[in-house]
Protein backbone atom coordinates (compact mmCIF):
# COMPACT_ATOMS: atom_id res chain seq x y z
CA UNK A 1 0.00 0.00 0.00
CA UNK A 2 2.69 2.47 0.99
CA UNK A 3 5.20 1.03 -1.44
CA UNK A 4 7.88 1.25 1.20
CA UNK A 5 6.86 -1.71 3.27
CA UNK A 6 10.29 -2.04 4.84
CA UNK A 7 9.92 1.21 6.81
CA UNK A 8 9.06 0.81 10.49
CA UNK A 9 7.16 3.41 12.53
CA UNK A 10 3.94 5.22 11.69
CA UNK A 11 3.06 6.80 8.36
CA UNK A 12 0.07 8.71 7.09
CA UNK A 13 -0.23 10.41 3.72
CA UNK A 14 -3.05 12.68 2.53
CA UNK A 15 -5.25 11.12 5.17
CA UNK A 16 -8.88 12.34 5.27
CA UNK A 17 -11.93 11.31 7.29
CA UNK A 18 -15.46 12.63 6.99
CA UNK A 19 -18.32 11.72 9.34
CA UNK A 20 -21.85 12.31 8.11
CA UNK A 21 -24.97 12.48 10.23
CA UNK A 22 -28.34 14.16 10.41
CA UNK A 23 -26.86 17.02 12.42
CA UNK A 24 -24.52 17.81 9.51
CA UNK A 25 -21.28 16.46 8.10
CA UNK A 26 -18.02 16.82 9.97
CA UNK A 27 -14.63 16.79 8.24
CA UNK A 28 -12.67 15.28 11.12
CA UNK A 29 -9.36 14.91 9.22
CA UNK A 30 -8.17 16.51 6.02
CA UNK A 31 -4.92 16.04 4.16
CA UNK A 32 -2.99 14.79 7.17
CA UNK A 33 0.62 13.82 6.48
CA UNK A 34 2.53 12.34 9.35
CA UNK A 35 5.61 10.27 9.88
CA UNK A 36 6.81 8.89 13.20
CA UNK A 37 10.10 7.05 12.85
CA UNK A 38 10.64 3.77 14.56
CA UNK A 39 11.50 4.55 18.19
CA UNK A 40 10.19 8.07 17.82
CA UNK A 41 7.90 9.84 20.28
CA UNK A 42 5.33 12.06 18.62
CA UNK A 43 2.87 14.14 20.61
CA UNK A 44 -0.29 15.56 19.11
CA UNK A 45 -1.82 18.66 20.55
CA UNK A 46 -4.82 20.60 19.33
CA UNK A 47 -8.14 22.14 20.28
CA UNK A 48 -10.91 19.91 21.58
CA UNK A 49 -12.71 18.10 18.77
CA UNK A 50 -10.03 18.72 16.15
CA UNK A 51 -9.62 15.07 15.21
CA UNK A 52 -6.76 13.81 17.39
CA UNK A 53 -8.61 10.75 18.59
CA UNK A 54 -9.81 10.07 15.07
CA UNK A 55 -6.24 10.09 13.82
CA UNK A 56 -5.13 7.72 16.55
CA UNK A 57 -8.12 5.49 15.90
CA UNK A 58 -7.21 5.38 12.22
CA UNK A 59 -3.75 4.05 13.15
CA UNK A 60 -5.29 1.47 15.47
CA UNK A 61 -7.71 0.29 12.75
CA UNK A 62 -10.81 1.43 14.63
CA UNK A 63 -11.75 4.06 12.07
CA UNK A 64 -11.67 3.59 8.33
CA UNK A 65 -10.09 6.60 6.62
CA UNK A 66 -12.22 8.12 3.87
CA UNK A 67 -9.17 8.77 1.79
CA UNK A 68 -5.37 8.56 1.95
CA UNK A 69 -2.70 6.09 2.95
CA UNK A 70 -1.73 4.89 6.35
CA UNK A 71 0.69 2.29 7.68
CA UNK A 72 1.99 0.91 10.96
CA UNK A 73 5.45 -0.65 10.85
CA UNK A 74 5.09 -0.89 7.11
CA UNK A 75 1.86 -2.88 7.40
CA UNK A 76 -1.71 -1.87 6.98
CA UNK A 77 -3.27 -1.08 10.37
CA UNK A 78 -5.43 -4.20 10.23
CA UNK A 79 -2.38 -6.39 9.68
CA UNK A 80 -0.44 -4.67 12.41
CA UNK A 81 -3.35 -5.16 14.77
CA UNK A 82 -3.56 -8.83 13.90
CA UNK A 83 0.20 -9.10 14.52
CA UNK A 84 -0.42 -7.43 17.88
CA UNK A 85 2.19 -4.80 17.25
CA UNK A 86 0.50 -2.01 19.17
CA UNK A 87 -1.00 -1.23 22.54
CA UNK A 88 -3.75 1.37 22.83
CA UNK A 89 -4.72 3.57 25.75
CA UNK A 90 -8.16 4.98 25.04
CA UNK A 91 -9.41 8.40 26.04
CA UNK A 92 -11.79 6.76 28.53
CA UNK A 93 -10.49 3.96 30.75
CA UNK A 94 -12.60 1.36 28.92
CA UNK A 95 -12.40 -1.32 31.60
CA UNK A 96 -14.65 -4.37 31.64
CA UNK A 97 -16.94 -3.86 34.63
CA UNK A 98 -17.29 -7.58 35.36
CA UNK A 99 -13.56 -8.16 35.68
CA UNK A 100 -11.41 -7.22 38.63
CA UNK A 101 -8.60 -4.72 38.15
CA UNK A 102 -6.07 -7.55 37.90
CA UNK A 103 -8.06 -9.44 35.33
CA UNK A 104 -8.55 -6.29 33.31
CA UNK A 105 -4.79 -5.90 33.09
CA UNK A 106 -4.21 -9.54 32.17
CA UNK A 107 -6.75 -9.40 29.34
CA UNK A 108 -4.36 -8.69 26.43
CA UNK A 109 -1.92 -11.28 27.74
CA UNK A 110 -4.73 -13.77 27.91
CA UNK A 111 -5.49 -12.97 24.29
CA UNK A 112 -1.90 -13.72 23.44
CA UNK A 113 -2.12 -17.04 25.18
CA UNK A 114 0.31 -16.30 28.00
CA UNK A 115 -0.14 -18.79 30.83
CA UNK A 116 -1.87 -17.66 33.96
CA UNK A 117 1.00 -17.46 36.49
CA UNK A 118 3.11 -15.42 34.10
CA UNK A 119 0.37 -13.03 33.16
CA UNK A 120 -0.70 -12.53 36.77
CA UNK A 121 2.86 -11.73 37.70
CA UNK A 122 3.28 -9.27 34.83
CA UNK A 123 -0.02 -7.62 35.72
CA UNK A 124 1.02 -7.24 39.33
CA UNK A 125 4.26 -5.60 38.26
CA UNK A 126 2.39 -3.20 35.98
CA UNK A 127 -0.07 -2.33 38.74
CA UNK A 128 2.82 -1.59 41.10
CA UNK A 129 4.28 0.62 38.42
CA UNK A 130 1.13 2.77 38.27
CA UNK A 131 0.78 2.70 42.07
CA UNK A 132 -2.25 0.44 42.31
CA UNK A 133 -0.67 -2.71 43.72
CA UNK A 134 -3.19 -2.93 46.53
CA UNK A 135 -6.25 -2.57 44.33
CA UNK A 136 -5.80 -5.72 42.25
CA UNK A 137 -8.93 -7.37 43.56
CA UNK A 138 -11.21 -4.33 43.34
CA UNK A 139 -13.74 -3.86 40.58
CA UNK A 140 -13.44 -0.83 38.27
CA UNK A 141 -16.40 1.00 39.81
CA UNK A 142 -14.62 0.97 43.16
CA UNK A 143 -11.82 3.11 41.77
CA UNK A 144 -11.56 6.84 41.24
CA UNK A 145 -11.43 8.19 37.69
CA UNK A 146 -7.67 8.65 37.75
CA UNK A 147 -7.12 5.20 39.17
CA UNK A 148 -9.19 3.66 36.38
CA UNK A 149 -7.08 5.46 33.81
CA UNK A 150 -3.93 4.14 35.46
CA UNK A 151 -5.31 0.61 35.17
CA UNK A 152 -5.81 1.21 31.46
CA UNK A 153 -2.19 2.34 31.16
CA UNK A 154 -0.98 -0.74 33.00
CA UNK A 155 -3.02 -2.85 30.60
CA UNK A 156 -1.51 -1.25 27.50
CA UNK A 157 2.03 -1.59 28.81
CA UNK A 158 1.64 -5.20 29.92
CA UNK A 159 2.33 -6.61 26.46
CA UNK A 160 5.53 -4.67 25.73
CA UNK A 161 4.16 -3.47 22.41
CA UNK A 162 6.46 -2.05 19.77
CA UNK A 163 3.98 0.74 19.01
CA UNK A 164 2.08 2.58 21.72
CA UNK A 165 -0.96 4.70 20.82
CA UNK A 166 -1.99 6.77 23.82
CA UNK A 167 -5.01 9.08 23.91
CA UNK A 168 -4.68 11.53 26.80
CA UNK A 169 -3.51 8.80 29.13
CA UNK A 170 -2.61 11.16 31.97
CA UNK A 171 -5.50 13.61 31.55
CA UNK A 172 -7.28 12.54 34.72
CA UNK A 173 -4.19 12.58 36.94
CA UNK A 174 -2.84 15.16 39.35
CA UNK A 175 0.39 16.85 38.40
CA UNK A 176 2.56 14.93 40.84
CA UNK A 177 1.34 11.52 39.78
CA UNK A 178 1.52 12.69 36.22
CA UNK A 179 5.12 13.79 36.53
CA UNK A 180 6.00 10.48 38.07
CA UNK A 181 4.30 8.54 35.30
CA UNK A 182 5.92 10.79 32.69
CA UNK A 183 9.30 9.72 34.03
CA UNK A 184 8.19 6.08 34.04
CA UNK A 185 7.06 6.40 30.46
CA UNK A 186 10.41 7.89 29.48
CA UNK A 187 12.14 4.99 31.15
CA UNK A 188 9.94 2.37 29.48
CA UNK A 189 10.31 4.08 26.12
CA UNK A 190 14.05 3.98 26.52
CA UNK A 191 13.97 0.30 27.41
CA UNK A 192 11.56 -0.86 24.72
CA UNK A 193 12.56 1.57 22.03
CA UNK A 194 8.86 1.66 21.20
CA UNK A 195 7.28 4.03 18.73
CA UNK A 196 4.84 6.25 20.58
CA UNK A 197 1.97 8.39 19.35
CA UNK A 198 0.77 10.42 22.29
CA UNK A 199 -2.22 12.76 22.53
CA UNK A 200 -2.15 15.32 25.30
CA UNK A 201 -3.60 18.66 26.25
CA UNK A 202 -0.66 19.61 28.39
CA UNK A 203 1.92 21.63 26.51
CA UNK A 204 4.64 21.04 29.11
CA UNK A 205 3.96 17.33 29.04
CA UNK A 206 4.22 17.29 25.25
CA UNK A 207 7.51 19.17 25.32
CA UNK A 208 8.92 17.09 28.13
CA UNK A 209 8.17 13.74 26.49
CA UNK A 210 8.32 14.12 22.75
CA UNK A 211 10.92 14.09 20.05
CA UNK A 212 8.40 15.85 17.83
CA UNK A 213 5.09 17.66 18.36
CA UNK A 214 2.27 17.92 15.82
CA UNK A 215 -0.14 20.80 16.32
CA UNK A 216 -3.61 20.35 14.83
CA UNK A 217 -6.38 22.77 13.93
CA UNK A 218 -10.02 21.79 13.84
CA UNK A 219 -12.79 21.50 11.25
CA UNK A 220 -11.22 20.48 9.01
CA UNK A 221 -8.71 18.75 11.24
CA UNK A 222 -5.24 19.19 9.77
CA UNK A 223 -1.69 19.43 11.04
CA UNK A 224 -0.74 23.08 11.05
CA UNK A 225 2.74 22.80 12.49
CA UNK A 226 5.40 20.21 13.24
CA UNK A 227 7.80 21.20 16.02
CA UNK A 228 11.00 19.27 16.66
CA UNK A 229 12.00 18.96 20.29
CA UNK A 230 15.74 18.84 20.43
CA UNK A 231 16.14 18.44 24.17
CA UNK A 232 18.80 15.97 25.28
CA UNK A 233 17.98 12.50 26.54
CA UNK A 234 17.60 11.09 29.14
CA UNK A 235 15.07 13.66 30.28
CA UNK A 236 14.47 14.13 33.95
CA UNK A 237 13.38 16.71 36.51
CA UNK A 238 16.20 19.03 35.44
CA UNK A 239 15.01 19.06 31.84
CA UNK A 240 12.10 21.21 32.99
CA UNK A 241 14.47 23.87 34.26
CA UNK A 242 16.33 24.29 30.98
CA UNK A 243 15.72 27.56 29.11
CA UNK A 244 15.20 25.65 25.85
CA UNK A 245 12.31 23.87 27.56
CA UNK A 246 10.54 27.16 28.19
CA UNK A 247 11.23 28.43 24.72
CA UNK A 248 9.66 25.32 23.28
CA UNK A 249 6.66 25.60 25.60
CA UNK A 250 6.12 29.16 24.40
CA UNK A 251 6.48 28.12 20.79
CA UNK A 252 3.97 25.29 21.10
CA UNK A 253 1.53 27.58 22.89
CA UNK A 254 1.78 30.08 20.08
CA UNK A 255 1.17 27.37 17.50
CA UNK A 256 -1.81 26.13 19.48
CA UNK A 257 -3.30 29.60 19.77
CA UNK A 258 -2.96 30.01 16.03
CA UNK A 259 -4.50 26.61 15.37
CA UNK A 260 -7.37 27.43 17.70
CA UNK A 261 -7.94 30.73 15.96
CA UNK A 262 -8.53 28.88 12.69
CA UNK A 263 -11.14 26.81 14.43
CA UNK A 264 -13.47 29.57 15.54
Amino acid at each position, binding site marked *: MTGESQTLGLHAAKLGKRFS*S*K*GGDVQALEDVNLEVQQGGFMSIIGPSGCGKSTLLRAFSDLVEPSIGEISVNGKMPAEARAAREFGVVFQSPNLLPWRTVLRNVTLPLQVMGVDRPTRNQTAHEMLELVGLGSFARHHP*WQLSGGMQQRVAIARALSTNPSVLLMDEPFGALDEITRDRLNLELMRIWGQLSATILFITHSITEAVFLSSQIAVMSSRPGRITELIDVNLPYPRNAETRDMPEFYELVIEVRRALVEASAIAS
Partner: protein
Amino acid sequence: MSKTDLGSEPVLSEEFENAYNPIGERLRAGIRQILVAILLLVIAATLWELAKLITGTGDRTMPHVWDILSFLGSTTSQNENYTWFLVKNAWSTAKASLIGLLVGTAFGLTTGISISRSKLVGNGLMPLIVAAQAVPIVAIAPALVLWLGTGGVTKTVITTYLTFFPVTVATARGIQSVPQESHELLRTYGASKRTSLRILEIPFASPLIFVGLETAAAFSVVGAIVAELPFGSKEGLGVVILTSWQFYITEPRALYCVALTSCVLGAIFVLSVRLIAYFALGPRSQGEVL
Protein backbone atom coordinates in the same frame (compact mmCIF):
# COMPACT_ATOMS: atom_id res chain seq x y z
CA MET B 1 -43.76 19.58 37.60
CA SER B 2 -47.38 19.89 36.67
CA LYS B 3 -46.47 20.92 33.16
CA THR B 4 -44.39 17.88 32.54
CA ASP B 5 -46.62 15.07 33.57
CA LEU B 6 -46.92 12.00 31.45
CA GLY B 7 -49.65 13.22 29.22
CA SER B 8 -48.03 16.36 27.96
CA GLU B 9 -45.45 14.77 25.68
CA PRO B 10 -45.38 11.61 23.68
CA VAL B 11 -43.00 9.53 25.69
CA LEU B 12 -41.33 7.45 23.08
CA SER B 13 -41.30 9.22 19.79
CA GLU B 14 -39.62 12.28 21.15
CA GLU B 15 -37.43 10.44 23.57
CA PHE B 16 -35.72 8.64 20.74
CA GLU B 17 -34.62 10.85 17.94
CA ASN B 18 -33.24 8.65 15.27
CA ALA B 19 -30.37 10.69 14.07
CA TYR B 20 -28.59 8.01 12.19
CA ASN B 21 -31.30 6.20 10.31
CA PRO B 22 -33.89 7.92 8.19
CA ILE B 23 -37.31 6.33 7.89
CA GLY B 24 -36.72 5.12 4.35
CA GLU B 25 -33.70 3.16 5.41
CA ARG B 26 -35.55 1.61 8.32
CA LEU B 27 -38.37 0.64 6.04
CA ARG B 28 -35.94 -1.01 3.67
CA ALA B 29 -34.36 -2.87 6.58
CA GLY B 30 -37.82 -4.07 7.59
CA ILE B 31 -38.58 -5.36 4.14
CA ARG B 32 -35.23 -7.09 4.01
CA GLN B 33 -36.05 -8.76 7.28
CA ILE B 34 -39.32 -10.08 5.90
CA LEU B 35 -37.58 -11.38 2.80
CA VAL B 36 -35.05 -13.19 4.93
CA ALA B 37 -37.85 -14.71 6.98
CA ILE B 38 -39.44 -16.01 3.82
CA LEU B 39 -36.12 -17.37 2.67
CA LEU B 40 -35.70 -19.19 5.97
CA LEU B 41 -39.17 -20.64 5.61
CA VAL B 42 -38.17 -22.04 2.24
CA ILE B 43 -35.03 -23.47 3.80
CA ALA B 44 -37.06 -25.02 6.60
CA ALA B 45 -39.42 -26.61 4.09
CA THR B 46 -36.46 -28.02 2.19
CA LEU B 47 -34.97 -29.41 5.37
CA TRP B 48 -38.31 -30.99 6.21
CA GLU B 49 -38.44 -32.76 2.86
CA LEU B 50 -34.80 -33.79 3.14
CA ALA B 51 -35.35 -35.23 6.61
CA LYS B 52 -38.36 -37.10 5.33
CA LEU B 53 -36.37 -38.45 2.43
CA ILE B 54 -33.38 -39.50 4.46
CA THR B 55 -35.24 -41.11 7.36
CA GLY B 56 -37.84 -42.54 5.05
CA THR B 57 -40.64 -41.33 7.30
CA GLY B 58 -44.13 -42.07 6.05
CA ASP B 59 -46.69 -39.53 4.99
CA ARG B 60 -48.66 -40.00 8.16
CA THR B 61 -45.90 -38.63 10.36
CA MET B 62 -44.46 -36.17 7.92
CA PRO B 63 -46.72 -35.24 5.04
CA HIS B 64 -45.10 -33.53 2.08
CA VAL B 65 -44.93 -29.77 2.31
CA TRP B 66 -46.91 -29.41 -0.90
CA ASP B 67 -49.51 -31.83 0.39
CA ILE B 68 -49.91 -29.76 3.52
CA LEU B 69 -50.24 -26.59 1.49
CA SER B 70 -52.60 -28.13 -1.00
CA PHE B 71 -54.90 -29.03 1.86
CA LEU B 72 -55.50 -25.31 2.27
CA GLY B 73 -57.40 -25.46 -1.00
CA SER B 74 -59.76 -28.23 0.11
CA THR B 75 -63.26 -27.71 1.37
CA THR B 76 -64.65 -28.62 4.76
CA SER B 77 -67.62 -30.89 5.27
CA GLN B 78 -69.65 -27.69 5.38
CA ASN B 79 -68.49 -26.80 1.86
CA GLU B 80 -66.37 -23.99 3.04
CA ASN B 81 -62.96 -23.22 1.66
CA TYR B 82 -60.48 -24.52 4.21
CA THR B 83 -58.28 -21.44 4.07
CA TRP B 84 -61.24 -19.21 4.64
CA PHE B 85 -62.34 -21.46 7.45
CA LEU B 86 -58.92 -21.12 9.10
CA VAL B 87 -58.87 -17.36 8.63
CA LYS B 88 -62.29 -17.04 10.23
CA ASN B 89 -61.21 -19.04 13.24
CA ALA B 90 -57.88 -17.24 13.46
CA TRP B 91 -59.70 -13.93 13.48
CA SER B 92 -61.81 -15.00 16.42
CA THR B 93 -58.68 -16.08 18.29
CA ALA B 94 -56.87 -12.89 17.33
CA LYS B 95 -59.53 -10.70 18.90
CA ALA B 96 -59.23 -12.51 22.20
CA SER B 97 -55.42 -12.38 22.01
CA LEU B 98 -55.35 -8.67 21.39
CA ILE B 99 -57.58 -7.83 24.33
CA GLY B 100 -55.55 -10.08 26.61
CA LEU B 101 -52.29 -8.65 25.35
CA LEU B 102 -53.38 -5.08 26.00
CA VAL B 103 -54.67 -5.82 29.47
CA GLY B 104 -51.66 -7.99 30.29
CA THR B 105 -49.23 -5.34 29.07
CA ALA B 106 -50.89 -2.66 31.16
CA PHE B 107 -50.70 -4.86 34.24
CA GLY B 108 -47.18 -6.00 33.42
CA LEU B 109 -45.82 -2.50 32.99
CA THR B 110 -47.41 -1.32 36.21
CA THR B 111 -46.19 -4.30 38.17
CA GLY B 112 -42.72 -4.20 36.64
CA ILE B 113 -42.36 -0.56 37.52
CA SER B 114 -43.62 -1.06 41.06
CA ILE B 115 -41.30 -4.01 41.56
CA SER B 116 -38.26 -2.09 40.39
CA ARG B 117 -39.27 0.88 42.46
CA SER B 118 -40.26 -0.50 45.78
CA LYS B 119 -38.41 -3.11 47.70
CA LEU B 120 -41.59 -3.91 49.56
CA VAL B 121 -43.60 -4.59 46.45
CA GLY B 122 -40.68 -6.35 44.82
CA ASN B 123 -40.09 -8.66 47.71
CA GLY B 124 -43.72 -9.22 48.52
CA LEU B 125 -45.16 -9.49 45.07
CA MET B 126 -42.48 -11.21 43.05
CA PRO B 127 -42.65 -14.61 44.78
CA LEU B 128 -46.43 -14.52 44.54
CA ILE B 129 -46.33 -13.66 40.87
CA VAL B 130 -43.83 -16.42 40.28
CA ALA B 131 -45.96 -18.88 42.18
CA ALA B 132 -49.00 -17.81 40.22
CA GLN B 133 -46.99 -18.19 37.05
CA ALA B 134 -46.27 -21.81 37.89
CA VAL B 135 -49.94 -22.67 38.26
CA PRO B 136 -50.58 -25.00 35.36
CA ILE B 137 -53.10 -23.11 33.30
CA VAL B 138 -54.88 -26.29 32.24
CA ALA B 139 -55.50 -27.16 35.86
CA ILE B 140 -56.83 -23.77 36.78
CA ALA B 141 -58.87 -23.16 33.65
CA PRO B 142 -61.80 -25.28 34.85
CA ALA B 143 -61.89 -23.33 38.08
CA LEU B 144 -61.81 -20.07 36.13
CA VAL B 145 -64.71 -21.26 34.04
CA LEU B 146 -66.63 -21.96 37.24
CA TRP B 147 -66.09 -18.48 38.57
CA LEU B 148 -66.14 -16.43 35.41
CA GLY B 149 -68.41 -18.45 33.21
CA THR B 150 -67.78 -19.79 29.73
CA GLY B 151 -67.75 -16.37 28.11
CA GLY B 152 -65.07 -14.02 26.84
CA VAL B 153 -64.04 -12.93 30.32
CA THR B 154 -62.37 -16.26 30.98
CA LYS B 155 -60.51 -16.04 27.71
CA THR B 156 -59.27 -12.57 28.55
CA VAL B 157 -58.21 -13.60 32.03
CA ILE B 158 -56.21 -16.57 30.76
CA THR B 159 -54.56 -14.53 28.03
CA THR B 160 -53.79 -11.70 30.40
CA TYR B 161 -52.34 -14.16 32.84
CA LEU B 162 -49.92 -15.51 30.25
CA THR B 163 -48.86 -12.15 28.80
CA PHE B 164 -48.42 -10.35 32.05
CA PHE B 165 -45.36 -12.18 33.29
CA PRO B 166 -42.84 -11.56 30.49
CA VAL B 167 -43.73 -7.87 30.45
CA THR B 168 -43.31 -7.64 34.19
CA VAL B 169 -39.95 -9.34 34.24
CA ALA B 170 -38.59 -7.36 31.30
CA THR B 171 -39.77 -4.04 32.69
CA ALA B 172 -38.35 -4.71 36.12
CA ARG B 173 -35.06 -5.93 34.73
CA GLY B 174 -34.78 -3.08 32.26
CA ILE B 175 -35.34 -0.43 34.86
CA GLN B 176 -32.93 -2.09 37.21
CA SER B 177 -30.24 -1.98 34.56
CA VAL B 178 -30.20 1.80 34.41
CA PRO B 179 -26.59 2.78 35.18
CA GLN B 180 -25.93 4.26 38.53
CA GLU B 181 -24.38 7.36 36.90
CA SER B 182 -27.62 8.20 35.12
CA HIS B 183 -29.60 7.80 38.31
CA GLU B 184 -27.16 10.09 40.05
CA LEU B 185 -27.59 12.67 37.33
CA LEU B 186 -31.33 12.85 37.75
CA ARG B 187 -30.96 12.69 41.47
CA THR B 188 -28.98 15.91 41.46
CA TYR B 189 -31.88 17.59 39.72
CA GLY B 190 -34.22 16.50 42.47
CA ALA B 191 -36.27 14.74 39.82
CA SER B 192 -39.43 13.16 41.12
CA LYS B 193 -39.96 9.44 40.73
CA ARG B 194 -42.40 10.07 37.98
CA THR B 195 -40.12 12.36 36.07
CA SER B 196 -37.17 10.04 36.25
CA LEU B 197 -39.43 7.21 35.17
CA ARG B 198 -40.45 9.17 32.11
CA ILE B 199 -37.13 10.73 31.22
CA LEU B 200 -34.69 8.05 32.23
CA GLU B 201 -36.02 4.67 33.19
CA ILE B 202 -38.63 4.00 30.53
CA PRO B 203 -36.45 5.23 27.64
CA PHE B 204 -33.52 3.28 28.94
CA ALA B 205 -35.52 0.12 29.56
CA SER B 206 -37.51 0.33 26.34
CA PRO B 207 -35.36 -2.04 24.29
CA LEU B 208 -35.68 -4.72 26.92
CA ILE B 209 -39.36 -3.98 27.50
CA PHE B 210 -39.97 -4.48 23.81
CA VAL B 211 -38.22 -7.82 23.96
CA GLY B 212 -40.60 -8.77 26.75
CA LEU B 213 -43.52 -7.45 24.77
CA GLU B 214 -42.57 -9.65 21.85
CA THR B 215 -42.65 -12.69 24.08
CA ALA B 216 -45.95 -11.51 25.51
CA ALA B 217 -47.41 -11.05 22.04
CA ALA B 218 -46.58 -14.64 21.19
CA PHE B 219 -47.97 -15.85 24.50
CA SER B 220 -51.19 -13.96 23.96
CA VAL B 221 -51.97 -16.14 20.98
CA VAL B 222 -51.03 -19.25 22.91
CA GLY B 223 -53.21 -18.06 25.79
CA ALA B 224 -56.25 -17.49 23.62
CA ILE B 225 -55.86 -20.92 22.06
CA VAL B 226 -55.50 -22.60 25.43
CA ALA B 227 -58.54 -20.69 26.64
CA GLU B 228 -60.59 -22.09 23.79
CA LEU B 229 -59.88 -25.65 24.88
CA PRO B 230 -61.67 -26.23 28.17
CA PHE B 231 -65.12 -25.79 26.75
CA GLY B 232 -65.28 -26.61 23.10
CA SER B 233 -66.20 -23.20 21.84
CA LYS B 234 -67.62 -23.23 18.35
CA GLU B 235 -64.96 -20.90 17.01
CA GLY B 236 -61.27 -20.35 17.32
CA LEU B 237 -58.01 -22.07 16.44
CA GLY B 238 -58.11 -23.99 19.74
CA VAL B 239 -61.19 -25.87 18.65
CA VAL B 240 -59.76 -26.55 15.22
CA ILE B 241 -56.58 -27.90 16.80
CA LEU B 242 -58.60 -30.19 19.00
CA THR B 243 -60.62 -31.59 16.13
CA SER B 244 -57.60 -31.95 13.88
CA TRP B 245 -55.68 -33.71 16.60
CA GLN B 246 -58.49 -36.13 17.18
CA PHE B 247 -58.69 -36.98 13.52
CA TYR B 248 -54.98 -36.85 12.92
CA ILE B 249 -54.80 -40.34 11.59
CA THR B 250 -57.27 -39.84 8.83
CA GLU B 251 -56.06 -36.36 7.95
CA PRO B 252 -52.60 -35.44 9.24
CA ARG B 253 -52.43 -32.38 7.00
CA ALA B 254 -55.22 -30.66 8.91
CA LEU B 255 -53.20 -30.55 12.12
CA TYR B 256 -50.14 -29.21 10.34
CA CYS B 257 -52.25 -26.58 8.62
CA VAL B 258 -53.80 -25.31 11.80
CA ALA B 259 -50.46 -25.42 13.64
CA LEU B 260 -48.98 -23.32 10.84
CA THR B 261 -51.92 -20.95 11.08
CA SER B 262 -51.29 -20.52 14.79
CA CYS B 263 -47.67 -19.74 13.98
CA VAL B 264 -48.61 -17.22 11.38
CA LEU B 265 -51.03 -15.52 13.73
CA GLY B 266 -48.36 -15.44 16.43
CA ALA B 267 -45.83 -14.12 13.97
CA ILE B 268 -48.18 -11.34 12.93
CA PHE B 269 -48.55 -10.35 16.56
CA VAL B 270 -44.83 -10.48 17.27
CA LEU B 271 -43.83 -8.70 14.10
CA SER B 272 -46.36 -5.95 14.80
CA VAL B 273 -44.72 -5.37 18.15
CA ARG B 274 -41.31 -5.39 16.50
CA LEU B 275 -42.51 -2.91 13.92
CA ILE B 276 -43.69 -0.58 16.66
CA ALA B 277 -40.38 -1.01 18.42
CA TYR B 278 -38.55 -0.30 15.22
CA PHE B 279 -40.27 2.98 14.67
CA ALA B 280 -40.24 3.96 18.31
CA LEU B 281 -36.60 3.16 19.02
CA GLY B 282 -34.92 2.88 15.68
CA PRO B 283 -32.18 0.30 15.40
CA ARG B 284 -30.78 1.75 18.57
CA SER B 285 -28.00 -0.38 19.81
CA GLN B 286 -29.45 -2.66 22.41
CA GLY B 287 -26.11 -2.84 24.12
CA GLU B 288 -26.65 0.60 25.52
CA VAL B 289 -28.92 -1.08 27.97
CA LEU B 290 -25.91 -2.11 29.87
